[in-house]
């Protein structure tokens, strides 16, 4: 099974203080740390597991500047065979990105393409589906289990309300991978060092043959949601805050 995994580097915003820059269309990035998108990490792990179970190759792909290469090196250290970076500015929207990826992928040899189900920055969750459509291949989103059959593949999908559905899908196919499908392995620093010898190709959009497309979305303005009127932030020490919360709950008739 030859698998291509598309990965993205995203900021870790779980706990960081996020603020919008002066231009009003970007977040301030200086004090943020960046790493491989969590969903993509599961996708890379799943691809490597398929390769380890059977045989085949794993190629990881990203679009962006040189600073994005560390997530490719890391994926190579995990067990991917080859990496490709399309050297260009971050695409304006998912459609432009999907166009670049589709142009690149269609000339590669592959049975499966994996994406993370969404990315931790904008969480749109559309790039994978767009690429599948552009490539004209079947796809399944939010895949939380795969099983290789002869010439096809079984994919289970997570649905709302705790339901799962299972499809048998003809290859080639594209899946967007949900977290929890596996437990990604640890990648050690010396593993990353050793993986430096593995091939990492850098291609320009011209090398890839990307034709320009217009973005479908344009970002008008970015701002932090104004605090709601009924929301109240309770400050103070844990003891004070707990006491205040308890009296508030009592007051509002919660118990």
């Amino acid at each position, binding site marked *: 099974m030859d698998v291509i995994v598309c990965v993205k580097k995203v900021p870790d915003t779980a706990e960081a203080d996020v603020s919008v820059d002066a231009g009003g269309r970007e977040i301030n990035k200086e*004090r*943020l740390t960046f790493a491989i998108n969590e969903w993509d990490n599961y996708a890379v792990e799943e691809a490597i597991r398929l390769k380890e179970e059977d045989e085949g190759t794993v190629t990881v792909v990203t679009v962006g500047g040189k600073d994005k290469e560390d997530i490719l090196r890391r994926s190579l250290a995990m067990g991917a065979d080859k990496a490709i970076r399309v050297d260009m500015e971050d695409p304006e929207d998912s459609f432009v990105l999907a166009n670049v990826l589709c142009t690149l992928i269609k000339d590669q040899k592959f049975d499966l393409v994996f994406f993370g189900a969404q990315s931790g920055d904008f969480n749109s969750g559309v790039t994978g589906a767009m690429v599948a459509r552009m490539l004209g291949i079947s796809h399944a989103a939010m895949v939380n289990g795969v099983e290789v059959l002869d010439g096809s593949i079984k994919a289970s999908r997570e649905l709302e309300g705790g339901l799962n559905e299972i499809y048998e899908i003809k290859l080639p196919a594209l899946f967007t991978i949900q977290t929890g499908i596996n437990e990604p*392995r*640890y990648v*050690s620093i*010396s*593993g990353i060092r050793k993986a430096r010898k593995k091939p990492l190709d850098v291609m320009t959009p011209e090398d890839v043959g990307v034709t320009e497309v217009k973005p479908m979305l344009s970002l008008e303005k970015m701002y932090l949601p104004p605090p709601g009127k009924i929301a109240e932030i309770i400050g103070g020490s844990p003891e004070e805050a707990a006491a205040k919360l308890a009296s508030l709950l009592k007051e509002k008739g919660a118990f």
Partner: protein
Amino acid sequence: MMEVEEGNFDEAYDVYACMQCGKCTGSCAVSLRSDLNIRELMRIAILNKNEDLEKHEEIWDCTSCGICTVRCPRDLKPAEVIIGMRSSLVEGGTIPVTVRDALESVGTNNNPWGRPKSKRAEWLEDLDVKVKNISEGEEAEYLLYIGCTASYDPRIQSVSRAAINVLTKLGVDFGILGEEEPCCGSEPRMMGETGLFEMLVEDNLTLFDEFGISKIITLSPHAYNTFVNDYPECAKRLKEDDVEIPDIELEVKHYTQFLEELIDDGRLDGEMMNEFSGTVIYHDPCYLGKRNNIFEPPRKILNIIPGARCIEFDRREDRSLCCEGGGGRMWAEGTGTGERNAIIRVNDANQDGANVIAVACPFCLSTLEDAHVTAGYEETMRVMDIFEILDEVLK
């Protein structure tokens, strides 16, 4: 310490000299309550049967207290053999998820707690005194190295603030590195992430050199131990591999050693303190005691505090009962069942009549604090770092 490829445990740790006497297991801090049997692991190393290490989940139970190494009659380093085994598991990628996340966090956030680097200095916010920040170009004789746990853990942050208050009152010329402070690497090393440790040694020595730092006071015995014992050895090895490392000699002290010197110089004495009321029992941390033979300084400090009645545990100094907080155990629950050492310890303290357990290590504070609540001593006993006691009594 070195990376162990399959089959070279002998070269790395001289394991053939092991006579399987079992003194290591007999003294092990956790063997009574976990499957960890260090003699058995030594045997696996001798027989080079290290291919099935994944099955030995108990490898992650070791607290790296070091007592097995102290007791081994053949001068072997069984505690290091465990690190070697962890190291081959780390290289294979199959390690407990919590350990994986802690190590990944050191790589991205520079701390194993999964907290953003930009919040490393948040503990300073509740502080009244102004502290020099060496990373912002302010000069100071000493770097006070806070460490990851005392930077992020809400309970332990109070020790960092106490340290600032005390050192300021004593007129010590010191500064901190604030948000720029790096992980010292001790826990990653104990978790077997050799490559990450080497990277931290290289980066940190370069950083210390850049800011002209040569004298360091640490809050944690773990940071002290790694700066004093692991850094020089690692730096030497890296230099042999042609890695560029600045030639700096670090003078590192655990804060209890530093305060002992102030006592000896007449700069700290009981006259400067208000009366403390309580019976204080001191818990020796493994990384000061067993690993570095530092027993006296903390006792000397406690002894000059007016009103403090100092008593001792039966198991003290190099026989002190490990609190199980080290060796990556903050991120690995362990396979052990039965009573935790920390619970045994607070029960012992209670029986001995103590109402304050004095500690000198962030991990001991964390484990014993938890245990004293769990064991129901919240109203009758306090677990305090020596810095916190001093902060309370200094006029």
